């Protein structure tokens, strides 16, 4: 299991009697990316939450070689709207990160540091939330619809970043309805 980050074995999940997905199996090695696809309500986000350990599957097992080293960005950005961009970066523990300046410039947030998050557009908030992912050292990156709210330029920045992470032997699992150029294998759940 040296190169394997995650092994999912026959995962099933149902809410009451409503089956979301069943017998989902996959493995993720270092330097690999899985793109989870499926229709609305098929359980993509739930599968991600099972991978993270937030939700317990109805059946099946998930084996992780890294227990506490996951970067995650879900539908909610985990930002405090009443705080400034800078304070939110401080909350993420990234204020003294050596790559902060570079990433703020890349994402076009450098001149927004004093602005309250509530006054940012949805796309700008998403980019701020992505800083957490861009600057983490985690071996596994889990993203739920990361391209939503981003313009084409920023979608490309994110795709390039994720491709670079794959070259650095990180593992990535993400869901997306927006097509993107990431070297990934597809996991379809219905």
């Amino acid at each position, binding site marked *: 299991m040296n190169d394997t980050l995650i092994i999912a074995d026959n995962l099933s999940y149902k809410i009451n009697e409503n089956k979301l997905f069943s017998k989902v199996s996959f493995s993720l090695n270092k330097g690999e990316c899985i793109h989870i696809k499926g229709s609305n309500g098929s359980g993509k986000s739930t599968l991600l939450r099972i991978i*993270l*350990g*937030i*939700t*317990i599957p109805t059946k099946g097992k998930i084996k992780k070689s890294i227990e*506490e*080293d*996951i970067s*995650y960005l*879900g*539908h*909610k*950005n*985990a*930002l*405090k*709207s*009443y*705080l400034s961009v800078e*304070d939110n970066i*401080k*909350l993420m*523990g990234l204020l003294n990160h050596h790559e902060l300046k570079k990433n703020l410039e890349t994402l076009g947030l450098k001149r927004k540091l004093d602005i309250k998050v509530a006054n940012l557009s949805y796309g700008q908030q998403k980019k701020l939330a992505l800083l*957490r992912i861009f600057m983490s050292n985690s071996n596994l990156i889990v993203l739920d619809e990361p391209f939503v709210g981003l313009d084409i330029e920023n979608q490309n920045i994110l795709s390039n970043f994720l491709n670079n992470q794959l070259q650095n032997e990180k593992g990535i699992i993400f869901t997306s309805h927006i097509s993107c150029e990431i070297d990934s294998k597809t996991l379809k759940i219905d």
Partner: protein
Amino acid sequence: MKYLGLELLKLRKKTRSWLGPILVFWLIMIAYPLTIEASQENLEIGFFSVLWIAILLSMMFATEDIFTEDYNDGTLEQTLINDTSFAYQVALKVMIHWLLIGIPISLLSFIFSLGTNGNLSLSLLILPFAMMSSYIFLNLFVLGNALSLNKGSVLGAIITLPMALPVLIVLGKSITAIQLEINYSGFIFLLLGSLSIIIVSVPIVVSYIIKAHLE
């Protein structure tokens, strides 16, 4: 320490969360003498009952959205997957709320007590009782708030309010003991014992409840 600083940063910028409960306490204590015949004797009769109830209500307000905001914006999910124990983070969060709200309220209790009865030694004794009771109430309401995380804080308060009643009884008895100059240290130890159990058990229980909510 890092987490402590970050929680403080959030609370500092969200003045309503910590100043609101302190103002509620202050207003109740200011309103009390206005409702009765303002003679010294009358004031002293019901003062301590009003004081403990004011602390109880303030602590209820203090926990009103202690987890709701983090639940709604996704911070709780991030907290859950990071490498620090979730129960430990809950305990720290409660402690910071107590430092910012419980301590000022305890100090105000001392000041109001001194202003009402003019007895320094009695008022000084009020301080540890106010500090311990505020921490206990805070923990109890945190538990209620966790139970009713996505159902509104009133329900949580109703669930946990009966648990606070024994503490109110102990507080009432301790004041009687102090005023009659009989041994009151037993009450201090009783509160201290309860607090030491609550301070450990509530964060653990709350962490499981929140995990269940997020699931």
